[in-house]
Structure formats: structure tokens, C-alpha cells
């Protein structure tokens, strides 16, 4: 009996590595600390009522933000570990299997559990406020999306201490990811972590499409809608078409592993290339899904900090939509080297390059928004300006990759690694950081400290170029990605060391940002006006932080930069004060079902990961019961009485 337990434990828990024991201990300690604090201050009820069951888009946005920052840390630590291992030739810091697990989790976490939730966080924090709505179209579904993401991410991260991490690359190509070559639960964690959070992402896509199409304030026609909201629409369109493909692809991979199917196996008529084909049909749109909202953020920030209307609004909208559609016709550029026909390769090479055209238009429009403007270098603007050169060069190397015959030389080399970090960090991370700095005061009511922020900014930026520019050169030297080590004979050592130094500079930048946040909570400049940047769109017309119902009175929009126009009119004295008429506000009720149902999904994932079918069955029954119960709930919303609205507004310093 005891032996059995020991046996079980030694395969169940990941053992044998001091790093992991360290992680185990710190996880247990953190959990205990959280439980202790919550119990001591009697905060369990508060946590449940105010956060875990909330359907308020602003709170959900904040939860996404916190989770994604934690994931940025985890993914970043992975990155630093990899860079440490590669700093010198023949280093024995990480063994091959450990290194392989780390780049796999790094890539997966950064894209699916860092970039995606940070993006959803920004969607949630901004879109309803920007279009003058009181919430998203489906607040309950929104909460469900968040919890599905969160529990999916937790399931994935659990692999670090239980069962073992996946180690077949962030897109887990078969046959390597099949049972024959990747036995054990690691790969299943990958499948189920992504599957569960993927369902949430799909729901978020639907939610925001309907929100944007149907919940805009009166007068805000689509042609007056701010560009960030447009970019969210574009991104959501890609989500709803791309994510079902992902769902199926990894479901099929799971069937191969679990039910002995032969979709992507080497034998039995399976076809591993079909997996490559399918996963990139999702994977390529995916990278645009995450970058397009960053484009939206830049559009808002550039206009605000140049104190000028965005240039070429129509072109910007067309470009966003063109990117969304075109992104579905380029997927094969990720396997030019698969040996398929020349016409396929030629077609996808051209379709890939075509994306440079609308992207370029956006860059030019940003530049000409600054042109004849007045640029002030606040934090959001700093990141935006830094983005431009970084993304230009990264985009240009993307176009070079699209030259298919040349790609035979770049493919899977560090040239590729450099390309995508340049667009992912220079585009996505810089963009989201710009967005977070920009909208932070709206969410929390205070600004983030400028001085610490600048330190963070410069470390990130300089670190970035030091880290990734040498990698282009390494690619030309033949250095292949996913090498856990290399010898002295190739001449790769100098540039690798430089690259590692740069990576650690980015790490220092991140530390400055964490410091900045903790510092600013106490000492940050408070935002009493609700409009700290003298900005242009609706979200700045209400107090910071926004009351739970967002708008006491739904605004009537007349201009594409409506708040700016209002301020202008007030300054010119042409503003016509309209009598305020308050009405009871219709709001959704909180619900515990999203978190409970997602927990059952977690059970399904965990059960299948270890092949414990009974647990998965319990999970499925739980999910079904949750849906049943929800279907029978009719009392799902309520009205906020006028009195309460008036009181709340008064407490925020607004007289109505």
C-alpha cells in the first residue's frame, strides 16, 4: 500500500530537479499565505461576492490583467532560463528534456496565456466605456470566458509540478507529440489547457462582436466608432473564424493519443502534415489576432498625445478589415519547406506579402497623425514611438521570410526567432503596455509613476535590441531554433552571450515595472478629473474609476472624437447644456455558475490528462448540470434605482 502510494507520487509529481522543488515549495507557501490572509481578515465572502462571481466587465478586465502579468512573469522566467543555458557553448545548466519543456511552455504561455488574456483584459477594460455601453452584450458569458481561460491556464501551469511539462514545441507537431515519442501526461496538459481556454476565447470573440455591433451609444455610427473598438472588432472576427479550427485540430490530436485514432500518426494511414496544415490555419490568424488590438491602441494613443485627430480614419478601418480577411489566406508560409507544389508555395508567398500593404498604410497614418501635431512623451506615447521602428524592421524581416525560396534558408533558424520576437514584443507587448499605461488611470483612478516607468521603458527597449538583433546574425550562421546547446566550433558563442545580456536587461525592465506598480498604488498621481491625458473618446468623459454602471446617462454621440468635440465646444462657449434625465439602470446580476462550471471543465481536462475517465465523466456531468441550472434561471438582472445612481455620481463628485 505504502509502496503503491510512493510509486504513484513519484510519477505524479515531477521530481529530481531543485528548480522544481523550489517551485513546489513556493507554490504551497503562497497558497497557504493567501488562505491565511483571507481567513484572518474574513475576506472570503468579499472575494466571492465582489470578484469570483462578478459579471462586471471592468472587474473581469482587471482579473485578466493580473493573470496575464503573472503569466508574463512565468513566461519571462522561462525565457531567461533558456538564455542562460545558451549563454555559453556546452553549458550543463539545463538538460535537453528540461530545455525542451521550457521553450514549449515559454511559447505557449506567452502567446496563449499572456498575450491573449492581456488582450482580453484590454477589450474588457475599454470597449464598453469607449462605445458608451453599460456592459458587454453577454456579461454572464463574459465571466464564463474569463474563468475558462483562467482554469485552462492553471491546468497548463500545473504540468510544471505534476505529471511533467509538455516538450514538443509550442505548436506540438506530430508525430513527435504522439504517444510513441511523448508518452505521459505532459502533452495532454498542453492539449487540455489550450482547449479549455480556447473555448473561452471563442466566446469572447462572439461577445465583443455583438457588443460592438449592437451596443453602441446613440449617434455612434460605425463610421464614428473609435479605432480601438474597430481593432477589437477586427480581432474578434478573426477569433470566431480561427478558434474553431484550433478546437478541432487539438481534439483530433487528443483522439490520436487517447483513442488510438490515426489522424496524425506515422502509421495507420495518419498524416502528420495535415496537422501542420490545420494548426497554422489557426496559428497564422492568431498572431494577427493579438497584434491588431495593439494597432488599435496605437491609434488612440497617437491621436491623444499628438493632440490631433487620427489621420486617414477610413484607410485605417479598411486596413484593419483587410488584415482580418487576408490573414486567413497565408497560413502555408509556415511550411514552405514541406515539399508541396510550387504553385501552392507561390500563392502563399504572394498572399503573405500582401499583408504588408495594409499594415504599411497604418504605419503611415500614425506618422501623419503626429505630423503637424504636438507630441508629448508620456509613457503610453513612449511605447508607441518605440514600437514603430521595432515593428517596421520586424515586419520587413517577415516580408523577407515570405520570399519562399529564401525562407528555405531562414526557416527554423534564429532569423525566424528574431523576426517573431520583434513583432511580438515590439508590436504586441509594447502595444499592450502602451494600452495599460494609457487606460490604467481610468481603471484604478491613479497614474503609474513616470520616472520608474521610464527606467523600465529604456531597459526593455535597449535590452530588446541587444537580445534579438544578434539572433538575425545567428540565423545566417546556421543556428537552428530549439537547440539546447551548441559547440565551440561554429562561432556562435559571442552573439549568444550578447543576446543573453539583452534578455536580462528586459528582465530588469520588468522588475522596474513591478516596482512602478507597487510604488504607484501608494504614491501615484491621483486622477480626479476622469480625463488625465486630455483625451478624445467617450471613456474619458466619466469619472475614474468608472462607476459600476459606467454611464449615468447614455451619451448621445455626434463626432468621432466625441469627448474632444464636447470639450472644444465648452471652451468655445458653443456647448449646449442639455437637461439630464435619469432613468433606472438595467444591470446583470452576479453569478457563481461561471467559476463552478469552469472548475468542472478543469476536472474534465485533468481527468483526461491522466487518463482517469471517471473524473472526466464527473466533469461532464457537472458542466451539464450547470448549463441546465442556468437555463432555468430567469431572474438574471435587476434595475438600479435613480436615487442610487444620483448618490453614486455625487460621491464621485459629479452633480446631475
Amino acid at each position, binding site marked *: 500500500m505504502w509502496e503503491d502510494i510512493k510509486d504513484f507520487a513519484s510519477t505524479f509529481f515531477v521530481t529530481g530537479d531543485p528548480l522544481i522543488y523550489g517551485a513546489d515549495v513556493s507554490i504551497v507557501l503562497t497558497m497557504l499565505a493567501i488562505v491565511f490572509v483571507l481567513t484572518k481578515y474574513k475576506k472570503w465572502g468579499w472575494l466571492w461576492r465582489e470578484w469570483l462571481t462578478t459579471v462586471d466587465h471592468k472587474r473581469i478586465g482587471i482579473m485578466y490583467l493580473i493573470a496575464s502579468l503573472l503569466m508574463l512573469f512565468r513566461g519571462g522566467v522561462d525565457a531567461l532560463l533558456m538564455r542562460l543555458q545558451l549563454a555559453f557553448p556546452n553549458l550543463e545548466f539545463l538538460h535537453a528534456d528540461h530545455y525542451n519543456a521550457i521553450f514549449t511552455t515559454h511559447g505557449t504561455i506567452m502567446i496563449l496565456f499572456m498575450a491573449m488574456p492581456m488582450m482580453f483584459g484590454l477589450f474588457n477594460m475599454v470597449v464598453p466605456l469607449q462605445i458608451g455601453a453599460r456592459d458587454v452584450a453577454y456579461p454572464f458569458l463574459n465571466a464564463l470566458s474569463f474563468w475558462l481561460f483562467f482554469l485552462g491556464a492553471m491546468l497548463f501551469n500545473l504540468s510544471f509540478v505534476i505529471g511533467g511539462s509538455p516538450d514538443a514545441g509550442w505548436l506540438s507537431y506530430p508525430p513527435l507529440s504522439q504517444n510513441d515519442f511523448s508518452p505521459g501526461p505532459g502533452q495532454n496538459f498542453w492539449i487540455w489547457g489550450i482547449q479549455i481556454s480556447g473555448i473561452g476565447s471563442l466566446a469572447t470573440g462572439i461577445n465583443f462582436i455583438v457588443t460592438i455591433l449592437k451596443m453602441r451609444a446613440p449617434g455612434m455610427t460605425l463610421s464614428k466608432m473609435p479605432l480601438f473598438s474597430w481593432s477589437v472588432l477586427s480581432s474578434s472576427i478573426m477569433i470566431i473564424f480561427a478558434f474553431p479550427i484550433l478546437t478541432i485540430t487539438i481534439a483530433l490530436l487528443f483522439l490520436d493519443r487517447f483513442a488510438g*485514432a490515426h489522424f496524425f500518426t506515422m502509421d495507420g494511414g495518419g498524416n502528420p502534415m495535415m496537422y501542420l496544415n490545420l494548426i497554422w490555419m489557426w496559428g497564422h490568424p492568431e498572431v494577427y489576432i493579438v497584434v491588431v488590438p495593439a494597432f488599435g491602441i496605437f491609434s488612440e494613443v497617437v491621436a491623444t498625445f499628438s493632440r490631433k485627430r487620427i489621420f486617414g480614419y477610413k484607410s485605417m478601418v479598411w486596413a484593419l478589415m483587410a488584415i482580418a480577411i487576408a490573414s486567413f489566406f497565408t497560413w502555408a508560409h509556415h511550411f514552405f519547406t514541406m515539399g508541396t507544389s510550387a504553385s501552392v508555395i507561390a500563392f502563399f508567398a504572394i498572399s503573405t506579402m500582401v499583408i504588408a500593404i495594409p499594415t504599411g498604410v497604418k504605419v503611415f497614418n500614425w506618422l501623419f497623425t503626429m505630423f503637424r501635431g504636438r507630441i508629448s512623451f508620456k509613457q503610453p506615447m513612449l511605447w508607441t514611438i518605440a514600437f514603430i521602428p521595432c515593428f517596421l524592421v520586424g515586419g520587413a524581416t517577415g516580408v523577407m521570410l515570405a520570399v519562399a525560396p529564401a525562407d528555405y534558408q531562414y526557416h527554423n533558424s534564429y532569423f525566424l526567432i528574431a523576426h517573431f520576437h520583434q513583432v511580438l514584443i515590439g508590436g504586441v507587448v509594447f502595444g499592450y503596455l502602451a494600452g495599460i499605461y494609457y487606460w490604467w488611470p481610468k481603471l484604478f483612478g491613479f497614474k503609474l509613476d513616470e520616472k520608474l516607468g521610464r527606467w523600465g521603458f529604456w531597459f526593455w527597449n535597449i535590452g530588446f535590441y541587444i537580445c534579438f538583433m544578434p539572433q538575425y546574425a545567428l540565423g545566417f550562421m546556421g543556428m537552428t531554433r530549439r537547440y539546447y546547446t551548441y559547440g565551440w566550433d561554429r562561432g556562435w558563442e559571442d552573439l549568444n552571450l550578447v543576446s543573453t545580456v539583452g534578455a536580462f536587461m528586459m528582465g530588469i525592465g520588468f522588475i522596474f515595472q513591478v516596482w512602478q506598480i507597487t510604488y504607484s498604488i501608494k504614491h501615484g498621481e491621483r486622477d480626479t478629473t476622469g480625463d488625465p491625458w486630455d483625451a478624445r473618446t467617450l471613456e474619458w468623459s466619466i469619472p475614474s474609476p468608472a462607476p459600476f454602471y459606467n454611464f449615468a*446617462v447614455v451619451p448621445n454621440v455626434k463626432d468621432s472624437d466625441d469627448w474632444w468635440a464636447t470639450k472644444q465646444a465648452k471652451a468655445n462657449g458653443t456647448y449646449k447644456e442639455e437637461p439630464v434625465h435619469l432613468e433606472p439602470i438595467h444591470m446583470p446580476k452576479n453569478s457563481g455558475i461561471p467559476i463552478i462550471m469552469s472548475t468542472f471543465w478543469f476536472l474534465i481536462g485533468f481527468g483526461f490528462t491522466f487518463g482517469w475517465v471517471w473524473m472526466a465523466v464527473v466533469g461532464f456531468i457537472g458542466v451539464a448540470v450547470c448549463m441546465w441550472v442556468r*437555463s432555468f434561471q430567469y431572474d438574471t438582472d435587476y434595475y438600479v434605482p435613480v436615487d442610487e445612481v444620483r448618490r453614486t455620481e455625487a460621491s464621485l463628485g459629479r452633480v446631475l
Partner: protein
Amino acid sequence: MMANHHDHSHGHDHHEEHEQLKVLGFWIFVVTDCILFGTLFATYAVMMHSFAGGPTGKELFELPGIIASTFILLTSSFTSGLAVLAMNKGKVKELIAWLAVTAVLGLAFVVLEVNEFTHLMHEGATMATSGFWSAFFTLVGTHGLHVSVGLFWMVALMMQLKRRGINAVTRRKVTNLSLYWHFLDVVWIFLFTVVYLMGVM
């Protein structure tokens, strides 16, 4: 810039609008389901000839049962339409009755499918037989699973209709359900054509 009043008269309640919103959302969900099936069809098309020495579809498919399921599902699509008609006329009893007919037909379809699958497994064609059979079972099974979920939903809805009658919420739910049901019918038509008819050619 503040609107003093919603510039429309409050002739109808807010519920109605919220429910309208959910119809659009559900429609979009159905389109994403189209993509899901499209991916399965693509997989099936690529694996169509990967028999790996195992049995082929032509050898094992038994069309009579399939034809029966096809007409059953077609009819159920029609009866779910009749349910919506009854709803528009405000007749709860009739609505529930037509839903019940639809559910029975749907159940018959599922039973036939389970039957077919057991038959195939008997003949030695399982998920693990070859790429072709993996693709077959997944594609057809996913459709069957959708039908089963629809049945589950239909039962819940009939209970709600009984309890609450026709109102904005139940109206929206019936609309969505029938949309879903028609959609499954369409998917089946393509399954029938691509998998079975082309399979026995």
C-alpha cells in the same frame, strides 16, 4: 452631449431587446460551428483514401439505415419549423407538441446512428482502424453529439415552456433552438452526400 432621454418611445420592454441581441449572438455561434464542421470535412477529404489496408467505406456502409436517418432528420427539421409557427400564433400546447415530435424524431436519429456505429465496430471498423475510419467516426460522431445536445436542450426548453408559457425569453430560446436544428440538418445533408453517397460510389 448627454442625451436627455432615449430618443425612442418605450413601447416595449428592455427584455425584448436583450433577447434580440442573443439571437444575433447565437447565429454567430452557429457560423463558428460551421467552421468547426468545415475543418472536420477538410480532414475527412484528406483522409478519404487512407484505409491502411483496412476495410473501406464502400464495403461496410449500409445505405438503407442511412437513408432512413436522413428522412427522419429532414422531417424533424420541418416539425421544428412548425413549432416556431405555433409559437408565433401564441399556442403553447401546440408548440410543446411539435417540439416533442421533433425530439422523438431526433432521438430516433441518434438511436439509428448508435446502431450503425455498433454494426461498423462489429465489422472491425473502429476509430483505431485507419485514418479513414478515424475521420469518419469523428465527423459523423460530432454531428451525432450535436444532435444529442440539442435533445437535452429541447427537453429543458419544453419544461420551461410548460412552466412559463411563451414570453420574450422562451421565444428567443425556441427561435435559437430551431435555428440550431435546421443547421444540423444542413450539416447532415453534406455528410450524407460526401461521406455516404460518395463513399459508396
